[in-house]
């Protein structure tokens, strides 16, 4: 090799080195698209299964670990949508995955992905017939976020059925019965609590539920009277005594729990949850 050829070789190498360094510098200052690389994509289910060598449980674990390590404090709303998709996929691949339903309840429900959280919890509840928690969390979300006391009470009763300890079961059934107080449709509430009373094994709990039914019937009686009052006088009732003084009711019902009845902010008659202030 002559000195001239060698010289040319060095020149090319130098040129390439300069191109490399210039590109590297340029790239360094180019912003990256996102810091949250964990939640940019949700792979189709088929791809996830193939990537895990056909093993759906491994695919579920890989996606669940991905959902667990993500830093939710830096995530944007659209990334929560992807997290929800990833977790829904986990619950499809392995509905019984305990961590998955737990973080779906803890994270997704709070960040606007309530429907995904409920789907995951419902699947977990079906697969894990021995575990009360998915049904309990579902009931809580239904009550707290969806303002659906009847749905919440139904899931709460399902959760109660899965509890081995009879005392805890009673506590949960009591919750369900109390939630039914908030149901607008008093007829539905009466039917549900009456059915619960019929199924109750313990006598004292059955008596307690029957008292709740009696209380709900009183509420129903008051609401019907309030409708009559409005029709007759063209204005809503603002004081329960008006129902008696107008002759619609002979006497006001006496709440067996002693809490009595009141009005909600919309002027609807409701059951009080604590004794009236003296």
């Amino acid at each position, binding site marked *: 090799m002559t000195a001239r050829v060698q010289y040319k070789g060095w020149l090319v190498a130098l040129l390439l080195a300069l191109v490399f360094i210039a590109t590297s510098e340029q790239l360094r200052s180019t912003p990256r698209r996102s810091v949250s690389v964990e939640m940019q994509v949700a792979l189709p289910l088929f791809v996830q*299964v*193939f990537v895990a060598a056909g093993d759906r449980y491994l695919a579920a674990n890989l996606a669940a670990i991905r959902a667990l390590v993500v830093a939710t404090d830096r995530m944007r709303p659209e990334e929560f949508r992807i997290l929800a998709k990833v977790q829904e996929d986990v619950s499809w691949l392995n509905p019984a995955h305990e*961590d998955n339903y737990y973080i779906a309840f803890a994270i997704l429900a709070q960040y606007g992905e309530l429907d995904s959280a409920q789907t995951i919890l419902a699947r977990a509840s079906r697969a894990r017939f021995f575990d009360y928690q998915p049904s309990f969390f579902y009931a809580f979300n239904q009550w707290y976020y969806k303002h659906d006391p009847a749905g919440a009470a139904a899931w709460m009763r399902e959760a109660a059925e899965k509890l081995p300890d009879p005392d805890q079961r009673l506590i949960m059934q009591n919750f369900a019965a109390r939630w039914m107080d908030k149901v607008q449709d008093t007829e539905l509430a009466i039917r549900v609590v009456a059915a619960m009373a019929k199924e109750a094994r313990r006598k004292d709990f059955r008596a307690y539920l029957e008292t709740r039914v009696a209380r709900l019937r009183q509420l129903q009686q008051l609401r019907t009277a309030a409708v009559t009052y409005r029709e007759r006088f063209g204005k809503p009732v603002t004081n329960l005594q008006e129902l008696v003084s107008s002759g619609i009711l002979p006497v006001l019902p006496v709440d067996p729990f002693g809490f009595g009845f009141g009005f909600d902010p919309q002027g609807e008659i409701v059951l009080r949850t604590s004794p009236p202030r003296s």
Partner: protein
Amino acid sequence: MWQFMLSAGRAGLRSRSIQAILILGALLVGVAYLSASFSPRQPQTVALDVGLSGLRMTLVLFSLFWVQELVAREIERRTVLFALTYPVARGHYIIGRYLGVLALIALAAVLLGMLLWAVVLSLGKDYAQGFAIAPGIPYWSTVAGLWVDAAVVAAFALWVASFSTVPMLPLALGLAFAVGGKSLGAVAEYLAKGADGDPELMRFAPVIHAIQWVLPDLSRLDWRVWPMYGLAPDGQAAGLGLMLAVSYAALLLTLAVMIFTRRDFE
């Protein structure tokens, strides 16, 4: 035939496969152990889950490796001709080798199964999870299911080896078969449930249905929800899964014997 089986067993044990089992086993256990740290509520279940996935992959790789080592390579090197000089039918060679491979993967399944179980139990010392995993029969039935899975893959690789002139073909096709057969269950279930209302995907439903005429659904041999969550498999489904595996493996072995008997080595 028993001679071929025993020689397969001896050759399998003499080769470096035992070291490979130990290395892969250590890796498997390490991965299962690490995966537990990603689980806040059920570390033992996740370790068991990931460990069983690793065990399945390891057993499949071993079965392919041993078919490759004990049959495909013997054919390639023409050392098979020495075995065929014995006054026995050629079919005995194939069956003997297959039984040898089955015994070797059973040994690997028992060794790795015990190792995985020890690790999973050790994880329970730090944190008692709400729902305990199920040891004993549920666990060992699952390991047995994975062994049957690997046995079907071995039968497929052996069938390919019986006609292949390319030594790596049984390994490559065997891997594709193992992944395809295992994926089939999840894909078929997804389509059967309507593919989340995606009409594009639903067009594949008849194809997937037709594929099940030639490819066995190996996911039917995976009963891990039993040790993980105490959900015992449905008896009929498990029985049919086993029958599917045994009939498919027997069919492939029959084909392999027929092809191998007619094969011209000159």
